[in-house]
């Protein structure tokens, strides 16, 4: 690990002005620092900031502090009762030890697990812009099939952000000049394009302070994750779904997908294929057609296209039962 300066921030303002890389749970950042994939010159320890509570708002939604650990968020009775898809997604990720340390803000900012991103001897435009993408033409079992570019086919590895995408979460930040902004999660992440090293809209020094969940909606919640092991593995494909069926017709559907893109994926055409229709395999196949329109495999991840179709159909059968 390259050495670094260390400072513990005692306020959000001080953290945003400290001019360093934020560290909270550190479970992803330190892993990458040991491999010298990440080499920050300064770490700003935000772990003691007062951002670790979950508050109910007057509009019925929840405001989650950026430092709330994944375990605590998953076990919160309000989350279990009103946002089950989020609880399920969190519990489907990592291990008990990691969930105890990993934070809400940090989970949003997880880096990809692309093998070539981790291998400092390999070309990777995300790690080193301009060095190429060895995943294209290489081993890409875990890689993206949607929204890729000729510069990068990495996936976002998270589960929590997929559920938050289906729930229309809003990410609240504070910048070094004190300005706060609220960024809908749908606008927070960037597709790889020509700049896969820029993964979201955060500016230098800008700190995620909270995540807001809108007031809960009715509907059944489901998070289904397909992976190589039954526990403690990243998603090959995952579905977060909140679906309402009334009088035999799907009246509302919010679906987001993990393991298939550079960001938690959501496509309004998938939901449009469902709403107003009776639940049936024909309807579900139409939704899968919408999801996979333009999907491209890169060799060893070709299987993800039929996997995504089958998993989506199975998920929709279950959630509309």
């Amino acid at each position, binding site marked *: 690990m390259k050495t670094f300066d260390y400072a*513990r921030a005692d306020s959000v303002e001080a953290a945003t002005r400290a001019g360093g890389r934020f560290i909270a749970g*550190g479970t992803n950042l*330190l*892993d990458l620092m040991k491999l010298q994939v990440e080499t920050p010159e300064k770490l700003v320890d935000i772990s003691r900031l007062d951002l670790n509570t979950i508050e109910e708002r007057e509009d019925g939604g929840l405001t989650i502090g950026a430092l709330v650990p994944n375990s605590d968020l998953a076990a919160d009775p309000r989350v279990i009762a009103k946002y089950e898809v989020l609880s399920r997604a969190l519990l489907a990720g990592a291990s*008990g030890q*990691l969930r*105890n340390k990993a934070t809400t803000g940090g989970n949003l900012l997880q880096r990809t697990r692309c093998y070539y991103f981790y291998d400092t001897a390999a070309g990777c435009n995300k790690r080193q812009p301009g060095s190429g993408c060895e995943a294209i033409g290489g081993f890409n079992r875990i890689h993206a099939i949607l929204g890729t570019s000729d510069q990068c086919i990495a996936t976002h590895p998270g589960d929590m952000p997929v559920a938050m995408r289906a729930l229309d979460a809003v990410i609240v930040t504070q910048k070094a000049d004190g300005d706060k902004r609220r960024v809908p999660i749908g606008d927070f992440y960037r597709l790889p394009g020509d700049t896969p090293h820029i993964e979201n809209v955060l500016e230098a020094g800008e700190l995620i302070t909270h995540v807001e969940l809108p007031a809960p909606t009715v509907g059944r919640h489901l998070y289904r994750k397909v992976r190589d092991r039954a526990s403690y593995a990243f998603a090959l494909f995952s579905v977060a779904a909140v679906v309402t069926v009334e009088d035999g017709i799907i009246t509302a559907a919010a679906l987001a997908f993990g393991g298939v893109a550079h960001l938690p994926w959501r496509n309004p055409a998938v939901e449009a294929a469902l709403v107003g229709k009776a639940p049936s395999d024909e309807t579900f196949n139409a939704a899968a057609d919408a999801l996979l329109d333009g999907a491209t495999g890169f060799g060893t991840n070709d299987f993800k296209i039929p996997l995504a179709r089958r998993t989506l159909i199975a998920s929709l059968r279950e959630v509309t039962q």
Partner: protein
Amino acid sequence: MHFTINGQSHEAEVDVRTSLLDLCREHLGLTGSKKGCDHGQCGACTMLVDGRRINSCLTLAVMHQDDEIVTIEGLGTPENLHPLQSAFVRHDGYQCGYCTPGQICSAVGMLDEVKKGWPSHASADLTGASLDNAEISERMSGNICRCAAYPNIVDAIREVADASAKVDA
């Protein structure tokens, strides 16, 4: 830097890069916690920090100066084993023993999580889980045993969980 480990105060001058695991093993002589992968994947380094199980290899010592840290050395003594330690002996919950300190620290933290009512991926109902073997396996999936002593590890944890449930009832 000042640390509180197993109820004892320690002073140490360490490089800022030092993990909590390396602090204990290399600087304070607490070698019970093991380094397996050093990347948070195997769980051999599991410790309890403020009562919560974490991977001590994936956190910096400098970040834990105000915390209560418990390692395997703080759970029991050879003369007076922690209930999980004696259950691992009775059930032969190991072969080489390298993962055992992490397994036991993890199980202590895990049973506390169950007491708090925390659900897991294996819980059909998120509001009230009973600790069957599938639950134990899921909740302990962050601890790898290369010797694959898993059935006996689950039995040892099951025994302590059942005994504790009886006391609570």
